[in-house]
């Protein structure tokens, strides 16, 4: 959009009712392209605010129309404020994950080498994922807990895939403040419930990755995954 058109529309707006104008202009822009419309709107609004302030000044000189002046002294700064907030957004949003980080990576994991009672850790989207091949005793332990004893009640069946109950797949991050719980390697302490123990502030997880004791509010997350064969899963 050329500079002249911009000036002309700004001048037109200054002469007409503000809300109507904004709606019309943004409608036109929206039918074209949303992003550009937004940036333009910011510009319009700032210019708009300026005109209103000028008009307010003029009005205060000839003192003819008090209520109109009052409205304008309010409207000017208000438009400035709205414009300002909208102009701020790109500077806030730039801190959010960029396109590269957003790209959903999925990984395939071969489960065949993991023996009963062992666990491995794989990286998925920058986070560790715990995969444990549970023993029968561990599964029993997880199933036999009554839900009332759990701070974040969830039956073991909800946290595993049917027919693959021995496999427990969890995002290995403590839901308290994000440390990595101990319990993956055989020599680790596994906490009071034989699952995992977070050393940071003492959260205990059970053999289903559920929080049992300590400051963590939730069970460890279960990432989205499927079995693509009996010994292979796809996470993500």
């Amino acid at each position, binding site marked *: 959009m050329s500079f002249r058109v911009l000036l002309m529309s700004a001048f037109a707006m200054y002469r007409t009712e503000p809300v109507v104008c904004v709606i019309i202009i943004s409608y036109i822009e929206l039918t074209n392209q949303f992003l550009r419309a937004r940036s333009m709107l910011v510009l319009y609004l700032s210019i708009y605010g300026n005109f209103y302030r000028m008009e307010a000044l003029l009005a205060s000189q000839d003192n003819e129309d008090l209520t109109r002046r009052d409205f304008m002294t309010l409207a000017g700064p208000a438009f400035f404020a709205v414009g300002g907030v909208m102009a701020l957004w790109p500077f806030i949003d730039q801190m959010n994950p*960029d396109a590269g*980080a957003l790209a959903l990576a999925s990984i395939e994991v071969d489960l065949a080498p993991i023996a009963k009672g062992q666990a491995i850790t794989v990286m998925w989207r*920058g986070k560790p994922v715990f995969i444990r091949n549970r023993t029968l005793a561990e599964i029993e332990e997880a199933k036999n807990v009554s839900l009332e004893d759990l701070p974040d009640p969830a039956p073991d069946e909800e946290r595993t895939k049917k027919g693959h109950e021995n496999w427990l797949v969890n995002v290995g991050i403590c839901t308290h403040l994000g*440390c*990595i719980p101990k319990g993956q390697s055989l020599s680790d302490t596994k906490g009071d419930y034989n699952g995992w123990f977070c050393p*940071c502030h003492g959260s205990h997880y059970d053999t289903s990755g559920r929080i049992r004791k300590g*400051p963590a509010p939730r069970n460890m997350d279960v990432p989205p995954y499927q079995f693509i064969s009996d010994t292979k899963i796809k996470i993500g």
Partner: protein
Amino acid sequence: MKAHNDTYLPSGSISKWIDERLPIMRLMHGQFVDFPTPRNLNYMWTFGGILMFCLVTQIVTGIVLAMHYVPHADMAFDSVQRIKRDVNYGWLIQSIHAVGASMFFIAVYLHIFRGLYYGSYKAPREVLWILGVLIFLAMMATGFLGYTLPWGQMSFWGVTVITNLFSSLDEIVPGLGSSIVTWLWGGYSVTGTTLNRFFSLHFLLPFVIFGLVALHVWALHVSGQNNPTGVEMKVKSDGVPMSPFAVMKDLFALVIFVIMFAWFVFFVPDYLGHADNYIPANPLVTPAHIVPEWYFLPFYAILRAIPSKLGGVIAMFSAIIVLVFIPWLDTSRVRSTKYRPLYRWFFWLFAFTCIALGYLGAMPAEGSYVFWARVFTFY
């Protein structure tokens, strides 16, 4: 501000010429030479000058470090090691910066406790006090951001745990906390992206502090200094000019402080740090004991003490924020604790708890209890 005689006499034509156009030297002279200071200030009043010295030291050494430091997840750790080993005098400058942060906090804690003891937060010094609290907050942010930069294990896990504090907001509005955390990280975990932005902010904040300090000193020079008795100076002749009297005293205290500072820098540069920070950051292994820098320990202990996630976070932040309201929580008309025997008791109990919280990190329920008890006894 113009409560005292102006003795500035520009000598020489150049300084006269400047004085007529920008009387900055006159301003400085008025504020830092002629300025009337109470006669009875004790050594607790020297920490303001010491803090100024600390800030300048951090900025100067920091700028030098920034010339050699690389804010990248794969290179940050090595670049700090290179500063310590290869860069000419890098070992000295890095060590001054790292130890300097601790010295800064020692000084600021003493300065704050001085204010609490002598009632320096009371009218007409509330704004002065609040600016001080803001400086303290900005310092904590700067110290925290700086500690991430060496990108060792403690750096990495410290960032993870502290930024995750915001996720407790999920308990109020689901999703709010985690989106803030993602926003801070710029990803779904702490990464090099996080490190890069923390470096930028660590560079910025000290200059914000500098601005706040200017306002703090301005406010101080409007209301004038408090003194150990808490009884205001009636006329300006009650005081003595800042220079040479207060300046010499400040300098003497500064020399003692710098000797202590230097001892740490030259003999035990790593004493105040944590050995685990010599292990490069590893997102897969959390160190067995996560501890923040010593100057955050009292607050961290409060966090750990409270079994609920949100409750702990709220208690920790309110322990800091409550400082802002102290001028209004304390309704006693008597300023100095010298003349408040009951409050004196609580003051020392409070000081003791803070240290106990820091050292033991174990009995914090008692700590916040005493803290609140103290606040309530103000009434």
